[in-house]
């Protein structure tokens, strides 16, 4: 997997569907959901790392990925937003400029 684009992210979702996001201190409005799917997480990496140390949260099993077209002040971009099942955790996993 290629490296995730870094930067702080907050997502506002309605019924699990992302509607607005703030990324690298810029705000975007989701204009269109292009597609969505469910992806497996690399839970084993976390587990293998943690053998021998006290476990925190169990690693997530899978996440729902939303591919959206988002528009901000500097124009539009297509991003993949991953939502860890059963949490409020969002991450930006892919970006097309």
């Amino acid at each position, binding site marked *: 997997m290629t490296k995730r684009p870094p930067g702080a992210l907050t997502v506002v979702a309605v019924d699990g569907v992302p509607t607005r996001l703030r990324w690298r201190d810029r705000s975007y409005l989701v204009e269109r959901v292009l597609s969505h799917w469910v992806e497996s997480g690399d*839970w084993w990496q976390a*587990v293998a790392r943690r053998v021998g140390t006290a476990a925190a949260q169990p690693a997530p099993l899978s996440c729902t990925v939303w591919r959206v077209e988002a528009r901000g002040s500097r124009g539009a971009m297509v991003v993949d937003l991953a939502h860890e099942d059963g949490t409020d955790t969002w991450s930006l996993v892919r970006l097309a400029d």
Partner: protein
Amino acid sequence: MSFVHLHVASGFSLRYGSDTPQAIVDAAVAHGQPAVALTDRDSMAGAVRFLLAAREAGIGAIVGVDLPLAIDGPMATPPTPARGGVARDPGLPRVVALARGRGGWTALARLTTALHEFGPERGLPREAFARVQSLVRDGGITLLLGPQSDVGAAVAARRPAVASALLAAWRATGCEVVVELVSHRSRDPRAAASDIDGSPVRGRAHSTALAARMWRFAVDERVPAVLTNAVRHVDPAGARVVDVLDAVRRLVPLDARHLDRSNAEGWCKDDAAMWQIATEIADAAGGDMHGFASDSAARHLIDTTNALAARCVLDPVAHAGIGEVHLPELDVVMGRVSAADLDTAWHRPVAAHRTPAELAREAATADTVLRGRCEEALLRKGFSPADPVVRDRLEAELDTIARLGFATYFLTVGTVVRDIRAAGIRVAARGSGAGSLVNHLLDIALMNPLEHDLLMERFLTPLRRALPDIDIDVESARRLEAYDLVFARFGAARVASVSMMETYRVRHAIRDVGAALGLPRGEIDVLAKAFPHIRASSARDALRELPELRRTGIGRMAAAGTLDELLTLVEGVDRLPRHIALHPCGVLLSDTTLRDRTPIQMSAGAFPMSQFDKDDVETMGLLKLDVLGIRMQSAMAHAIDEVERTTGERIDLDAVPVDDPATFALIQSTRTLGCFQIESPGQRELVGRFAPETFHDLIIDISLFRPGPVKSDMIVPFLRARQGWSMPVYPHPDLRPALAETWGVVVFHEQVIRMIATLGGVSLAEADELRRELGSDDGQRRVRSWFYPAALGRGYELETVERVWEVLRSFASFGFCKAHAAAFAVPTYQSAWLKAHHPAAFFAGILTHDPGMYPRRLILDDARNFGVPILGLDVNHSRAAYVVEPDTEGVPGIRIPLSQVKGIDDASVEEIIAGQPFTGLGDFWTRTRTPRPVVEHLVLAGAFDAVHGIPPRPRRRGVNRRDLLLHVADLDRWAGRRLPAGQLALDCGPADVPLRTGLPDMDAGERVRAELEVLGLDVTRHVVDFYTPLLDALGVTRSRDLPGTRSRQEVLIAGVKVATQTPPVRSGRRVVFLTLDDATGPVDAAFFEDAQGPYAGTLFHAWLLLVRGTVRRAGPRGVSITASGCWDLAEVRRRWLADGVEGVWQLLDEVPIDEDDDAAVQGAAASRASRPVMVRAGGMGQRGTQRVLVHPSGFRQSPWADLKPAGDDVAAGAPSRLWHASPGSSGW
């Protein structure tokens, strides 16, 4: 609306599915679904229990198999080789074949058989489906062509013409064909080759988009489409386990590239979730499917799925044939028809069932034949046919057998036993079958059941329609020969062996999970080895409770919670099937319909093997014969052969009178090492107290030494009454006939049956049904509510009824079948008879076949104590096995065999024996190809001593073993060996004879060390001899002096560890029983839990031990030690040499630190359930709690009883195989 899952894998899909068939049924029930399918990969092994579970739950069961296809045609994908170049998961396209109706079950069984003939790694050709479908009427196969199939691959690759052609080919097979839609909401991998950020897309075929395309394809092709969820785990959390299984199957660490799933969606979803999926697919398909809007299209999809499900629901009886009895044809049993040449190919036409009329005719004939056989045997065996006791019993048995229609069964078993015996293989029946006179008359059971008052009802009653079990013991060394005889008699079309699912236990689970997580090998190894052989689900508890584990680094890690996630995964894998293997004894016998009812695959040893295990086979009603290989039978056969070889006398062991005084004198002396059933420390203690005088006493002795009697504390009152110290007590005079034989103490199942029959006023057959019910809690309640009114109604006092009920209840799940004990007592008696009369031959047999619990070196020591000379290894006299050979004074001794030499193989042994005699080492070197290390081992163990005149005691003059070793080196350097006949050795070669080089000879200690190293035996001297000065200095009590000790006296004992056992005992705590051998005989010591904490590690891992304890006297000969500590003798010796005796006392006073030593269990809660329940028991304010297993009868047992100890069995410095460690099933 409801939804039925048609594509569900269980754990029987090896290293693929993660749940039991039961869990799948439970999930369907929880979702209110009317039916569910089990479609395991390559196997029907889970099918029978699945059918039962579904029937129990009241839902429909659908059975299919997920089958790989042979690669051909345009959609073939190449296999993916993994470690070792072997394609572990060839990644073949797959289809699911569902069975419809009886024909479907047959076709499915044959397809599965065919798959294993072609090989699951190659897959099935399409023609196989056509062949199988054409064989059956009344139903057949429905094929689900899903995203994994070749059709699915073509659709995914957007090659509609190819997909169309493939579909046509499938339709041409004659099987019903439907298209299977699956959406796990994965990304559509075919949408784009690379991602929006340029990285390659990975994904699986379970996307909604592909499902939509396949649906459109199905509509175009006018093929029904159904929806499945391609389930691998029952709930979402199971996804981690299936990830681990994917990695394990491919022998790779976990990585997204190796997962078959792309997310955690492949679980048993409920109706709403599946409805949602159907709607999403319909939306993606464009909403015009079948001309419906997407809502209606989704409904149509689910309706089609459910309609197919309804047609595929199997009736366990009518379709799968559960409970049907199919006995071999009488003509085959009688040898009138040869069975050998029947075609057994999977595509052979389906067998014609015999019509009911034919079966009835055959049954009548079988009844007549059986009666004739029995009448003839009555005369032959010296019964008086007119004796009413004999006559009534025979008529009752024949009547029951005729009513059940089992005459052919008895004739079949009789034929098998006769064939085996005719081949000269020792054979004996075991189990309740020994209670049947018919079995005795057919020569299946040796003992006369009338003589020992055995009941037929314990074995067979008209109330139980199930085929009774007859188990046959044969010589272990010739067990497969016995199998071959069965196959020869009945033909491969009617015979198959039974399989056995090996499941994950904690060690396997840790290794596989650890490897999947990519943990370092060394660490995994340490972790796995730390555990005893237990269920993975017990791992956490073991870490917490076993002192020898808790004290390790791993125990501390677990206590800190740092192994939690790993252990969770380990527990997820627990008990999953891992490998299908040949059951060690089960053979299926049927008629020619066998292969229509069970899938067959070949075992590793090339025996046809049913995929059904012994429980399945029983459920199916297939006739199963247990042919057990018993080492003791081989040992006795060897002893008989040795007697004949050396004296010319052929002993008929089965005809030896069972009242021989010498034999009982031996048994009473407790010198019973090597004797069947009565050699364990506990049994030796019991025979010492009991002093059996008759064969019947032996039957009682064997029955007493069981958890039941131990639990009910029967042994003490029994022994008191028997010794005449107290009067027998009977709950009621009416019970005297049933209980007199054991002085009022209930020992046998048969007595329970009689008690119920007497007080309740029912037949013995009914009483046995009630006895069986006592095994469960519910059953006990039912029997109780019947028993009280019944007995009271017959005029018994309430007090009597209550007292009897208490006995019955506490007897509950334990106790022993007297017929079984009688059958077992036969080899017990026979082995003791051989030991009493032919000790040398007996020891030769025992040492060769190693049947018991003790290491060979202890048996050898026992032989020495019996005055049997031990003759050392000798190239000119040693054979492949232990043989009897007179020593120089003509006393029969035992010669150590070549096969005992470390590293020697069968071929070398044969070559050496063929070349005997040799004139010396040089001659040996020239004429054999024995590898140099083995030759050196032979020299070290003294095999050339005799031929080179090296005396038993070391000397200064003449050649010695070290000279011979140098000679081997010379010979090897000059390569002057293996000369073709007639060719002369070169002059410049080594000398023909070894020369004296001046090296000192090996001293006595070195010789014994070499013997232990090479042979695993101390032949010339006992190891403990070398410690004699130390033991004398410490005042250690020897085995032979123990009878002279006082009760509660503190003693030190020492010796070589020969056995540790952790049996179930009355208190529910773990007790470790240790047997030491100190050259004067065995000494037994018990470690209770308070003594284990600090010493468990030493106890399990050291070889030579010093033990401190107090004497416990029990009966005239019974002496045992309650241990309070143990130390490695080597360490004690070091301390002695350094600091003298005072130093040793200091060492013994230092208590090893055990920080969290738990106090003993305070007593388990008296919770009662049908199965043993685990109870936590711990006193107030104690840190540690311990768990106790509580059986329904109240019997408490340590959960760690019956376990092998953790770690390698080999202590540092001690050669392997020198002691026995066991759960204690063969004794304490």
